[in-house]
């Protein structure tokens, strides 16, 4: 698969967008599987920023790798914005002290990336519209944080009627 360059992967992704959801669904795993492994440094940065954004120290590293690959594929200007988000958060860690993100106009691009990263971790999907890429279902944090009470839809809650009792 080494002959499939990143450029080729993006071309494939473009192709999926044209053929619609059906093509996408079949080929995205292929594209992601074919994508080159990101550099270790970038992976470390991605994981560190993800931990800051989620305040979760036990993020799944395998999933982090998949989210990073998807980000590079689906989000414009990703590498550059990730680097800038890293500097911003190291220079102004207090930005994350507030309950909601507000990086200010000058850092709107970094804030958007922060939200996209949170979306990736929490919904298992990176990007939106034609560029949206599935990364995980069961391991998305939104499913994990309610996992003591809810089962992700399409998986069984239990034998018929088990939902009658109080959660």
């Amino acid at each position: 698969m080494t002959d499939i360059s990143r450029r080729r992967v993006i071309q494939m992704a473009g192709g999926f967008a044209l053929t619609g959801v059906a093509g996408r669904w079949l080929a995205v795993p292929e594209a992601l599987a074919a994508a080159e492994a990101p550099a270790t440094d970038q992976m470390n940065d991605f994981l560190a920023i993800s931990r800051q954004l989620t305040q979760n120290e036990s993020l799944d590293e395998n999933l982090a790798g998949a989210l990073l690959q998807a980000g590079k594929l689906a989000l414009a200007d990703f590498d550059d914005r990730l680097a800038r988000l890293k500097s911003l958060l190291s220079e102004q860690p207090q930005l994350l002290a507030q309950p909601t993100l507000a990086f200010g106009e000058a850092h709107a691009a970094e804030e958007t990336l922060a939200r996209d990263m949170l979306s990736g971790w929490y919904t298992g999907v990176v990007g939106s519209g034609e560029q949206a890429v599935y990364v995980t279902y069961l391991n998305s944090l939104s499913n994990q944080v309610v996992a003591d009470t809810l089962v992700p839809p399409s998986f069984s809650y239990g034998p018929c009627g088990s939902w009658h009792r109080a959660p």
Partner: protein
Amino acid sequence: MSNEQVADVVVVGAGICGSLLATRLARAGRSVLLLESGPRKSRGELVQRYRESAFKSDYMSPYPYSEMAPQPRFTPEPNHYLEQAGPNPFHAQYIRMFGGTTWHWAAQLWRFVPNDFRQHSLYGVGKDWPISYDELEDYYYQVEVIAGVGGEPDNGSPRAKPFPMERVPASYLQQRVTDRLAPDYRVIDDATGRNSRSYDGRPACCGNNNCMPICPIDAQYHGGLAAQEAEAAGVEVITEAVVYRLEHDDRGAISAVHYYDWQKNSHRVSGATVVLAANAIETPKLLLMSTSERFPNGIANASDNVGRHLCDHPAIKVSFDVDEPIWPGRGPVSPCSIGQFRDGDFRAEHAPFRIDISNGSKVASVTKELIAEGYHGRHLEEQVRYRAARRLAIKNAMEQLPDPNNRVTLSDKRDALGLPTPRLYWSIGEYERRGTQATRENYDRIAERLGATNVKHSADGAFSNRQHITGTLSMGDDPATSVTDRWGRAHDHDNLYMVGTGVMPTVGTCNVTLTAAALALRTADRILEETQHG
């Protein structure tokens, strides 16, 4: 000729209505050919497509899309298959596939209330049906037995026999909402084709909370099962067969249907009887496309009624956070509703409606909402739990009066096979707007009763579709104001029948599949009667 086929009956559309009718005809010994424009997919593939979709909130996302048999699509971006020509957009969703649109539904199988059939006589609005509730009662029951329907018996629709299925146990959410809204609001079990025990080779519901878009264990009845049953009964089903023209003979009888396969080879199929079951937008489209010198406005359209009286339930929604955790997402997605506004003298003034209470998981939607609000870190996690536990979503099924100006016509666009796409005109009238106002007042009262915070109503003047498309092939006794007669036969063509929700003259206040399926079985019996000496 190799691309010619003959059958006693040719049915167009392998959805729930066409399949049930085809099954009955085949069991009575008729040769039946069932043509389906879309492909065939297994349940497992659909489950996979759902789980690996980037667009899980779109119920259409697991269903395959092809330019050869296009259908309305809204993600990633709208494909504008339906051209909108009216003041209100009509965002229909339907599935062109073996089994049809009831692949994704909540198996709601409601009967109309008896007064729905006499709307004009009783309240001076809308239309009366050519038939009564009593004429349909036994057919309602026949479909309920096929699908294994259970629910609250005292729901306004009298029944000669009890439901064939015991009701699915109420979720905690349903119990809490029922208790807290009583006695002003009576929350009842929906009538659903969902198993609470093993039935007809299908298991009891396991609460996968995924009735829409796809039940992974077939605990609920759906059109895919109906189509499979048709095949088992001896019906020959041809998928990826896009019917594009109805041919007539000198007497005006339908002599053949023509279809393209997905390689655009044309085929001709003739049958003594032809039944159109291709949904309430695609069937009128096909009739309007089938023009000839003798029928310049299309088949069955001498009085210009084909495609008119387009109705749905124009819905408004509300969502809020209840003041206690109720945890939607445990059990079936759509278990209960409030039915006390379905009938009454007020129908002379404003539209009646039913209020549907959702039990679908809200985890994904509150998460998106919170991220959009900028939440992150621990707060995000806490808020996901908080809102996912308390979020209640409600919508209505409000009757729309049939209006001849609301209609399906042909657009100037062409699909990949060169066939015209539908153009829709839809306008919501004052009667419905008054009904919307009444709904809205009840929403506020319900929200207050449940200690709601974070209340969000639909935008003023915005209506969403419920995919209960009716009216476009209306049955009636007067050929001047209807397309089909009381049996679903085209007024203009002796051997052409139509089934599906399009033949329903009015949309009522409940999901329409049971009524359409009951009518389809009734039409099947009529065809058997009419053709028994042929």
